[in-house]
């Protein structure tokens, strides 16, 4: 079988929210006054950049020769055999430079920052992958980079903290609130409010005020563009389901995007079920949350009866976040996408089984998507075809998994 040559392409401008940044009832721009002009200017600059052939050519060049795209679509035959016999394909974002899908967005936005004349990037990070990707893009383009990271996450992702510093970024620990991703975003926004004149806020997921949910999804749309062409070439038809983990939701939006108009393809997002679906012990927004306004956007979030954001828990730092990107809230409300959750135990089991069955150690975030495959494969049976976004590699998690299992592998 010959595979047609696939070049990294994006889906720009075909599925925009309305002019105020709303996907149905979700999205918008709920920001302090000082940032309104900044998000307006960013929107204008982004919409202009995505139309500019030179900008797109430079992004494609970087994705091809620096990131290593296209990433393979690997048929995981042993995982499939263990999952009711369905054909399971892994979109190997773990094989990108820096080891996760985050680099697709970080390079796109860093190019935009450079185009807008910023000299300094601000980023937040949970698992550290977006921080590493931002630090990498900053090094490549000669920009200054400050990364905010919860101190809780710094402890469980120590390797990535070191990588960011090695790349020349300044990592600032955040110990307010729960000392995780949401607190890092609060602190990054506080920085941006003060430094808006010369700094660019490089948000890492499909969250926050317009245009971030649109822009991040479009920079990640390369994943779905490639995966759709690859599955048609390799399996001869569209898949029955596309599965991705959902923290803020950028890897999921990136792969869902190409399949949204393919009505026969189920889009399945997998949230973090943590220890249990009770307040403070999970991060499954659609299982235990409600609509609200948080960190710039109207979406689903985990909150108490008084509107305060509740604590979250997940073994995976990248999914340990109280709100979900607004486009997911919209896809859920229309029924176009469905959302499940996998708990810590299932994710750890999937982490190990993918290593044993396929020789691939996934990020704990991606392991949540893999955890959903067994049940789905049994449901679909041997005729079924599943594409899973393997959003990142698990090197960063090896130490914390070893600690959790007492060193038993």
């Amino acid at each position, binding site marked *: 079988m010959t595979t047609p040559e696939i070049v990294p392409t994006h889906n720009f401008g075909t599925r925009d929210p309305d002019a105020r940044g709303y996907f149905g009832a979700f999205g918008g721009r709920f920001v302090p006054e000082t940032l309104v002009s900044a998000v307006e200017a960013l929107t204008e600059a982004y919409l202009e950049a995505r139309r500019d052939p030179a900008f797109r050519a430079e992004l494609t060049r970087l994705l091809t020769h620096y990131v290593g795209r296209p990433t393979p679509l690997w048929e995981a035959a042993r995982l499939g055999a263990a999952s009711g016999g369905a054909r399971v394909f892994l979109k190997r974002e773990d094989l990108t430079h820096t080891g996760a899908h985050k680099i697709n967005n970080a390079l796109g936005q860093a190019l935009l920052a450079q185009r807008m004349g910023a000299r300094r990037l601000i980023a937040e990070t949970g698992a550290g992958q977006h921080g590493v990707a931002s630090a990498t893009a900053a090094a490549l383009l000669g920009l200054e980079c400050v990364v905010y990271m919860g101190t809780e996450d710094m402890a469980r992702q120590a390797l990535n903290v070191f990588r960011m510093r090695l790349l020349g970024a300044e990592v600032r620990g955040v110990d307010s609130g729960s000392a995780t991703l949401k607190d890092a975003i609060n602190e990054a926004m506080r920085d941006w409010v003060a430094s808006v004149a010369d700094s660019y806020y490089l948000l890492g997921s499909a969250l926050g005020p317009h245009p971030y949910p649109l822009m991040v999804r479009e920079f990640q749309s390369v994943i779905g563009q490639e995966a759709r062409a690859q599955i048609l070439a390799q399996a001869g038809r569209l898949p029955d389901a596309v599965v991705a983990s959902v923290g803020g939701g950028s890897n999921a939006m990136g792969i869902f995007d190409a399949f949204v108009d393919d009505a026969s393809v189920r889009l399945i997002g997998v949230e973090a079920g943590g220890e249990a679906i009770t307040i403070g012990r999970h991060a499954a927004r659609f299982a235990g949350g409600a609509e609200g306004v948080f960190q710039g956007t109207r979406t689903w979030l985990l909150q108490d009866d*008084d509107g305060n954001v509740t604590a979250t828990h997940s073994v995976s730092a990248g999914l340990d976040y109280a709100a979900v990107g607004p486009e997911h809230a919209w896809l859920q409300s229309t029924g176009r996408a469905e959302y499940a959750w996998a708990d810590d135990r299932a994710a750890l089991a999937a982490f190990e089984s993918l290593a044993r069955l396929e020789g691939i150690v996934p990020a704990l975030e991606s392991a949540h998507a893999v955890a959903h495959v067994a049940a789905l494969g049994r449901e679909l049976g041997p005729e079924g075809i599943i594409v899973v976004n393997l959003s990142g590699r698990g090197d960063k998690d090896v130490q914390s998994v070893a600690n959790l299992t007492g060193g038993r592998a």
Partner: protein
Amino acid sequence: MSRLDGTFARLRAEQRTGLVAYVTAGDPDLPRSAEVIRAVDRGGADVIELGVPFSDPLADGPVIQRATERALAAGTTLARVLDLAASLRADVAAPLVLFTYANPMVRMGIPAFARRAREAGIDGVLVLDLPPEEAGEARASFVAEGLDTIFLLSPTTSVERIRRAAELGGGFLYGISRLGVTGARADVADSAESLAARVRAETTRPLALGFGFSRPEHVRAVGRWADAAVVGSALVQVVAEHAGNPDLGGEVERYVRWLRS
């Protein structure tokens, strides 16, 4: 004419610089917060802003973040802040403005929130992360209940948006005198004067300038360009330092009186 309109008309008639005092409601707890608010009123604040504690105060600096944490730990909620305001309304002369993030209000339901705020005797509402573009529904509910919608202006706000805020807002406009989060600074920023000049060129609506002020000379300086100065973090810091002091109210009253000297 709303109570806030009356206050600012009087300030202009008397050619006096107003003092808008911000406290985090429920800090350090609800009973002592009541004492603090009464003391701020006795000290002569012209408007009192009650900050509603929220779990993720992304526009606030460390002093108000800590106050928020104390208030939340003491069980303060939006509903209890409204009860607190209702219990004080008869004794407090100054207009009361609620200063909140959007989500607690959204969670309560905006029409229900507006009704309860009016019943509690609240005069105006400022929602920090609800710029005019997102405020349509809230403003309609506030107007229906006779509450003034207070909008923020910043050094980065365009002339068109200053006009829109002046047109849609009520009571007064709150000018953020410098970029950044809340917190006391040594000096009045140059950006305060230029923002005030830009606002004055567009509207006659009363203007209060805030962010960074902590001393009577700051208040006097602001008076050259605006109707009133807002003092927030510095006052919250006084509350924090004297939280365990039996004379908390006296300390707060003396500080507010000093600001007006």
